[in-house]
């Protein structure tokens, strides 16, 4: 067991942890006055990112003033004597923190630059007959570094003039917001980190030329200092982004501390902090296809919020669609017909970024084409046919003589009938409009579900969203993930159900709708009841309208027939008597939902 020699670092490829040539080795949560000591030890890389102790600030400010000396024309308020007000002091600290950010960004950019320097010549030789490294190796080692460099360079270039021409009202939050939204790049870097290191390690072992390059990368000193470029190993430089990303919230905490809450920057910085925190807490999350798909343009994880089968009215016909609501977009897909030996897949029909989505009110949208309201008697006929078929199937099953083929045939027929009913019976319109033009129309059977969709979308829209367009690849990935992500697996059709599945309740349910309270103003109120049959909800009962009251007492009793029911839903509406809004012809419910709730009937 021979210890590794003095100068040689133990090159242990199995170790993920990396030697850090660290930046902010110590943290300022020390209450003790050892700041002096720290800074002298860490040299130029020390950053007054965190300056907890107020007693230190004069000293700190003096120091930082020196460092930005000659760069900024010092505004007069900076030189205010001790009697300055709290907020002035806070704003002064703000500038100091920002100068610090700038300095550390510069160091970081220089490090990335040094790392990128050998990339071009390496790439150039890769295509020649005597390559130092193969293109694949280069891609593995320098994965995403160029992107990270550009993100930070952009940030630095924008921040620099702001700090140099300092004004207390200047906002920088948007820059931090942008930086935070681009943190997603680091996720890819972290994922590739091990691979990058191993490749670099392997290459420097078997390639002397690359070994020489990687052992001796020159990092420029800060602009105004006359420091000689320092030589650093590639390994140490590759670690920088790792070290950097975990600290991305520290500076925001610091800035926020010195930003008054009424400053225009406050909200922006808070948002940037939230995004960074979201990112950092999700960076280690396993990519669970059930919950996460891809990341949004802001670097947050795009998650599936709600999905379900809906009937879309498009090109003058009813079509069954699966609608997926993600964190920032609504995607309408069609289940592709299953081909043998292949997984079922979805086909994207359209999508709308939630930022562009609006709900048109009934008056301003076109009425539903009459043509598509299926006559009631046809639906009743179909229902009758289905119930005849159902009893036939039951009979066949009981007699046991009936060949399975007969049952199969009957079931197939029933599936056809039911699919038709599923497509034809919904009448409640659900309109969605894309600000950029196109409108879409769904037909639902349950107003409860319509309001659930609407609420889910509106809740997501409360967040600060931005419009975007997915590339075809992104769209493909997202659509591809739909099959795994979906929570609703089957079309709500009885013949789809296996016999052993929980059958729900059968028989008659007696419901008494008694009273309601808690309204803020008196109005004309009524309730409706919805019950499902194998997950398909239909409105079954409706109370009379109780006029001008805050405490309606309906006391009405209903008998509802259940068939494979699981759930009872109750909706309370405010009746709308406005004639102009009323449009009786197309079954539109214009009444406002005041409240809703549901009860699991079968457990």
């Amino acid at each position, binding site marked *: 067991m021979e210890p590794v020699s003095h100068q040689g*670092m*133990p090159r242990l490829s199995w170790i993920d942890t990396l030697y850090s040539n660290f930046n902010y080795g110590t943290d300022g949560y020390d209450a003790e006055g050892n700041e002096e000591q720290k800074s002298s030890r860490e040299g130029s890389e020390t950053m007054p990112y965190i300056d907890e102790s107020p007693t230190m600030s004069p000293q700190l400010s003096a120091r930082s003033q020196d460092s930005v000396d000659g760069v900024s024309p010092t505004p007069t308020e900076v030189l205010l004597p001790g009697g300055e007000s709290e907020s002035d002091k806070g704003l002064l600290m703000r500038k100091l923190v920002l100068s610090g950010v700038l300095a550390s960004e510069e160091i970081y950019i220089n490090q990335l630059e040094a790392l990128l320097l050998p990339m071009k010549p390496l790439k150039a030789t890769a295509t020649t007959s005597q390559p130092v490294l193969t293109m694949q190796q280069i891609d593995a080692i320098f994965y995403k570094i160029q992107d990270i460099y550009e993100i930070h360079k952009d940030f630095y270039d924008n921040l620099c003039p702001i700090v140099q021409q300092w004004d207390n009202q200047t906002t920088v939050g948007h820059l931090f917001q942008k930086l935070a939204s681009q943190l997603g790049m680091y996720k890819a870097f972290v994922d590739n980190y091990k691979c990058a290191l191993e490749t670099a390690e392997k290459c420097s072992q078997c390639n002397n030329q690359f070994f020489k390059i990687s052992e001796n990368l020159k990092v420029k000193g800060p602009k105004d200092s006359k420091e000689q470029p320092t030589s650093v190993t590639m390994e140490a430089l590759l670690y920088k982004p*790792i070290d950097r990303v975990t600290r991305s919230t520290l500076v925001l905490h610091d800035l926020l501390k010195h930003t008054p809450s009424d400053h225009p920057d406050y909200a922006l910085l808070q948002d940037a902090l939230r995004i960074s925190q979201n990112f950092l807490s999700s960076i280690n999350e396993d990519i669970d296809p059930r919950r996460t798909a891809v990341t949004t343009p802001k670097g947050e994880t795009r998650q599936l919020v709600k999905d379900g089968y809906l009937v879309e009215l498009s090109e003058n016909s009813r079509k069954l669609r699966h609608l997926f609501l993600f964190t920032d977009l609504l995607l309408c897909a069609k289940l592709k017909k299953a081909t043998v030996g292949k997984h079922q897949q979805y086909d994207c029909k359209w999508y709308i970024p939630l930022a562009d989505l609006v709900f048109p009110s009934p008056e301003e949208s076109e009425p539903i084409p009459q043509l598509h309201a299926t006559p009631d008697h046809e639906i009743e006929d179909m229902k009758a046919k289905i119930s005849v078929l159902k009893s036939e199937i039951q009979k066949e099953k009981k007699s046991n003589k009936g060949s399975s083929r007969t049952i199969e045939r009957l079931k197939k027929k029933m599936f056809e009938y039911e699919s038709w009913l599923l497509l034809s019976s919904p009448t409640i319109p659900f309109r969605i409009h894309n600000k950029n033009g196109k409108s879409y129309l769904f037909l639902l059977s349950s107003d409860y579900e319509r309001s659930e969709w609407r609420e889910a979308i509106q809740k997501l829209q409360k967040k600060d969203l931005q419009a975007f367009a997915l590339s075809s690849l992104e769209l493909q990935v997202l659509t591809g993930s739909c099959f795994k992500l979906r929570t609703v697996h089957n079309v709500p059709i009885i013949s789809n159900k296996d016999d052993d599945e929980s059958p729900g309740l059968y028989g008659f349910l007696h419901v008494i709708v008694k009273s309601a309270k808690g309204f803020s103003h008196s109005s004309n109120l009524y309730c409706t009841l919805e019950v499902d049959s194998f997950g398909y909800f239909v409105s079954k009962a409706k109370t009379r309208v109780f006029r001008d009251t805050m405490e309606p007492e309906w006391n009405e009793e209903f008998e509802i027939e259940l068939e494979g029911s699981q759930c009872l839903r109750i909706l309370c509406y405010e009746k709308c008597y406005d004639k102009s809004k009323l449009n009786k012809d197309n079954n539109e419910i214009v009444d406002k939902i005041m409240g809703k709730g549901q009860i699991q009937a079968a457990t």
Partner: protein
Amino acid sequence: MVPTVQVAVLGACGVGKTSIVRRFVAQDFQEEYTPTEYRELYRASAVLSGRLYELHILDVPNLQRYPATSGQEWMDPRFRGLRNSRAFILVFDICSPESFHHVKQLRQQIIESSSKTPLIIVVGNKRDQQKHRFAPRHVLSVLVKKSWKCGYLECSARSNWHVLLLFKELLISATSRGRSTNPSICLQGALHRERCSIM
């Protein structure tokens, strides 16, 4: 946020606590001895099997006694935050039996004053001075692992030997604690495996 592991490095004077930490975070080593006067917190990021972690390493001056209560901890600002540590690295000098004895006491005090079994790794530093050691490695190793139920490892901050391994083991044990009831068992297994691969 990124999962954070709080580690405190404890041990007698001059065993090389700061050297080990500095070797790990800053890749440097100083031959001359400067006693640590203040508590210092080092932050290091690490990637372990594709996951990102933050290590907060608390380097404190030698303490005579591990603070048994939070009151005691707050009496001396140098030791602040010590009792929040989830893991401890107890360092001794393989040439100094006294420092080993000190580690023994520290371990006892830590265990007595914590409600949960803390993760403790006992580290024999100055492996480069192998010739002057006071007891054979296996004797110490068996004693620490079997009767103290702690992880055991020897390293050398000067020659940068096993320092990385130490923090890797620490991170593995600290992050997998939920799964294994006895930290020392899981640590032993891990150590054994790694030892094979390095020798």
